[in-house]
């Protein structure tokens, strides 16, 4: 029978090496991605290894040692490299433990909101019609709410805590996931491989999870990085306003709030946590930008 068939086609060798090595190469070629990834990884390590890295107990108060300036100050000392706060707690240790709070809230919020937003968006995009109308209504309602005000109001009702902040932000920040998932799914809904799966009698979960989701994951990961950054900033905001993480937890936002009385004479109480926040959010955004470049058309599938 083979003789009746068309001759085999010589495979093109467009791609050299495995996809892993190709991914590594294009990652290293992307400066934003490399820098972002480096900073995030080191901050992640700091958060994980906080008990071993922190020179002091972040909660230990020492009123005799209040407002020690950081090391670059004339009166600074190596016992407290970044000085101490108004209660004499070691600032570096609090900063290190604060990394945990910021990263935890950022990641968990992105996870919760990602789940909600992706589910709603994929369903709306895939089914269209009434499902889409309902999701679009939810989305408009959500977009009409000022996040900070709603979060403040809710937090004041539920009482501020790390858990309530995380849940609140998770329930509020799904809008971008939904928008992106919806439009990406709409484009895929009519893709011929989705139709081919439908024509085969594949179940709905199979089509959504195996055919649609992997192909919109790239766009969603980019959104996720942006939302992590967003959540970290919002947590800091809420904590600053006193409705987020409660003292004595070493949240960066809280540290800024506690330092605001000393802003003019000891500016470092604000600049240190402020810079930490800035660097973290910047690196996450760099990572997001880099990922977007990687997942853009021409990245993986030519």
């Amino acid at each position, binding site marked *: 029978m083979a003789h009746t068939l068309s001759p085999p086609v*010589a495979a*093109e060798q*467009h791609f050299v090496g495995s996809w892993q090595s190709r991914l590594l190469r294009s990652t290293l070629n992307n400066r934003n991605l490399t820098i972002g990834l480096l900073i995030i990884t080191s901050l992640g390590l700091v958060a994980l290894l906080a008990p071993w890295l922190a020179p002091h107990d972040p909660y230990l108060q020492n009123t005799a040692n209040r407002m020690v300036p950081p090391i670059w100050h004339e009166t600074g000392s190596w016992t407290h490299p970044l000085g101490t706060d108004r209660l004499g707690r070691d600032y570096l240790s609090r900063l290190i433990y604060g990394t945990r709070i910021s990263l935890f809230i950022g990641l968990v919020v992105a996870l919760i909101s990602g789940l909600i937003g992706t589910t709603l968006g994929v369903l709306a995009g895939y089914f269209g019609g009434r499902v889409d109308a309902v999701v679009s209504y939810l989305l408009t309602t959500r977009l009409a709410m000022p996040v900070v005000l709603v979060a403040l109001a809710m937090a004041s009702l539920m009482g501020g805590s790390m858990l309530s902040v995380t849940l609140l932000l998770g329930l509020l920040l799904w809008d971008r996931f939904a928008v992106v998932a919806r439009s990406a799914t709409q484009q895929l809904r009519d893709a011929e491989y989705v139709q081919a799966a439908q024509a085969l009698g594949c179940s709905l979960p199979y089509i959504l999870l195996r055919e649609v989701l992997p192909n919109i994951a790239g766009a969603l990961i980019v959104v996720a990085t942006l939302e992590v950054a967003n959540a970290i900033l919002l947590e800091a905001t809420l904590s600053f306003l006193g409705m987020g993480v409660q003292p004595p937890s070493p949240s960066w936002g809280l540290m800024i709030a506690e330092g605001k009385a000393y802003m003019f004479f000891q500016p470092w109480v604000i600049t240190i946590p402020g810079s930490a926040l800035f660097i973290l959010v910047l690196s996450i955004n760099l990572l997001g930008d880099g990922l977007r470049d990687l997942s853009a058309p*021409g990245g993986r599938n030519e």
Partner: protein
Amino acid sequence: MSNLSSAERSTAPVSPLLTVKQLRVDLPVAKGTLHAVRGIDFHVERGEMLCLVGESGCGKSMTSLALMGLLPRKAQVNADCLDFDGVDLLTVSDRERSNLRGARMAMIFQEPMTALNPAYTLGNQLCEALRRHQRVSRKAAHDRALYLLERVGISAAEERMRQYPHQLSGGLRQRVMIAMALMCEPDLIIADEPTTALDVTIQAQILHLLRDLQQEFGTAVIFITHDLGVVARIADRVAVMYAGEVIETASAQALFQAPSHPYTQGLLRCIPTPGKTLPGSRLQAIPGVVPNLVEKVDGCAFCNRCDQADELCHTTPPLQTVADGHLSRCHFAHQLANPATINAQEVTL
């Protein structure tokens, strides 16, 4: 028209409108450099229809974009000569080039919807195309637009002028694109697959129109297509491209009657032709795929798919003159040009 232009040529030998020598286009890609166009030579006479024909990735669109200066910035364009009626397109300034575009060279794209601005009316865009390059009154531009819309077969032209691109069907949009290309009476129109997205009946109408207008206005056209049927019906001359090279140039008549490159012969054999191929029979496909142009291509680019290749084909074949104005880049061009040899070879296959 071909009578007219050949008459012109015989009375006074004029230089070609466009001369391209050793044009190369290199594009940096993730895995190296894509040699999209690898040293091509061709020329366009005044008032003639030259078809650039080839399969996807052969560099035909890159060539047209290089001529229009519309390649992405990272692309590298080199040539020994890129002469458009005395203007060196390689060294021309951006400003001069944009003066050339539209005024003396115009382009018609495959998808007119992307080439027309959805925010402006057709009349607005047509007049703008003229007034950007010529000092004419609003009225004069409007009159010319109206005349051309009627000329390209659009009824109720006055009304259409006030419409927006999305209100038109694909065929009508392409007619508008042709009218827009003709607004400044350019010397050269580059048409990149202008009918590929259209239905067959509409395609025939648009081609008919384009051919008529081209002859009436004496405009030279570089028509880029992959469809040999279209080429046969509209071309004065044809340049066949393969893997970034022009592998055969000839008049349309000569190319279809005595193709002298194995690739051209293969292309002509593999399309089902009513009356020639027996329905339901096996077509003579060209085996294999085009070479990867990121890597260096040694020798003849077609030799891995050619059934007549031998050792000689691992060296780069020269462009050989088979007949007057008929060039082929094949070591065996002379044997191939002789039909008797082809038949003999077909028998042995």
